[in-house]
């Protein structure tokens, strides 16, 4: 995927051309022109407003234009708790969106049902529709949402259409440890406990 890029600066009256793959161009264009459909059902909507307002400003990522018709949008933001009664509506909204389309689960309730374990709440939107990126938090900080948005942009640029799965932080197959986990080391010489390794 990541072929080495050779860049040449043209000056004067030189002319030139660049070659790439069609999918790469399409992915690049798509990731900076996300038309969102905000499916706001709960308190996460407040955090979404702060995300859209100038301080955090997700229009920097080309994702600010809302379309309140699913037929004109390609990114479904599911923001808030989805109830059992609402689930068929959310599914229908997703089905009405044009391909290619992506789904972003905003907050714990949309991702997993949150602390609701009862008769009325869907335990995560992935029970109904495929979800590309989950953003945890109750509600998530705007920085977390922007991180999720950038993860989605990476995914679009890669052309990756697989639904997200939540990976464990330590993957024994890869031997990979996320540096998000901060391990504390215990000193044996009696000095105060060490910081993050």
């Amino acid at each position, binding site marked *: 995927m990541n072929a080495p890029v050779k860049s040449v600066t043209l000056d004067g009256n030189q002319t030139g051309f660049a070659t790439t793959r069609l999918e790469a161009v399409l992915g690049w264009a798509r990731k900076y022109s996300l038309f969102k459909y905000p499916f706001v059902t709960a308190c996460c909507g407040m955090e979404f407003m702060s995300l859209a307002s100038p301080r955090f400003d997700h229009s920097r990522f080309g994702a600010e234009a809302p379309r309140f018709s699913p037929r004109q949008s390609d990114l479904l933001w599911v923001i808030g708790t989805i109830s*059992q*009664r609402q*689930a*068929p*509506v959310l*599914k*229908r909204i997703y089905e009405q969106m044009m391909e290619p389309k992506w789904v972003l689960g905003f907050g714990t309730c949309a991702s997993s049902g949150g602390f609701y*374990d*009862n*008769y*009325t*709440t*869907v*335990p995560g939107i992935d*029970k*109904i529709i495929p979800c590309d990126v989950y953003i945890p938090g109750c509600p998530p900080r705007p920085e977390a949402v922007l991180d999720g948005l950038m993860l989605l942009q990476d995914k679009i640029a890669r052309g990756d259409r697989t639904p997200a799965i939540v990976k464990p932080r330590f993957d024994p197959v890869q031997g990979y440890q996320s540096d998000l986990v901060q391990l504390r080391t215990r000193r044996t010489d009696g000095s105060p406990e060490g910081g993050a390794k």
Partner: protein
Amino acid sequence: MSSAVLKRLQEVFGAAIVETHSQWGDDTAVVETARWLPIATFLRDDAACAFEMLSDLTAVDYPDREPRFEVVIHLLSLSKGHRIRIKTRVGDAEGDGAIVDTLCGVWLAANWAEREAFDMFGINFRAHPDLRRILMYPEFVGFPLRKDYPADRAQPLVPYRTAEEAGLTIDKVAPFGPLEGMSFARNDWTKPEL
């Protein structure tokens, strides 16, 4: 405060008032289910009571008691500035036979509140104009706020359906049909419910 109202209720209805108590300015009367509607009508129309507003109608489940449910109304008199709480007890241990007269003819606000009590507790309101579930979907089995409903039991997801497929006429689709909702809308509220 309005213990006068309790006194007046006991004068007029006598043994139909099962018990009363008043504490910290809150007055409560438990009444016989059979006299539910006349008592409500009296409370609205009597000049000394004048409860023009139904603040709330709900129910409480006491699984150890028989009758099991209490239907509770909270009333407010806008002109007199006093409040009262009226309860009645219905339903056997299995929750069957929980039937109360509807108060829709007394306060229009009772319509949706009674639908909610029906939806959550399975209490039937006799002669209610439109007793359907209001929060849950029609396919839902059971009554979720009864104490014997398992707290974590979810039910299968239902497919999407249009209003026609659900058997609803277009004026019954939530939220605002012509007769559901707000008294300040441009409806003729003097006409009986359709």
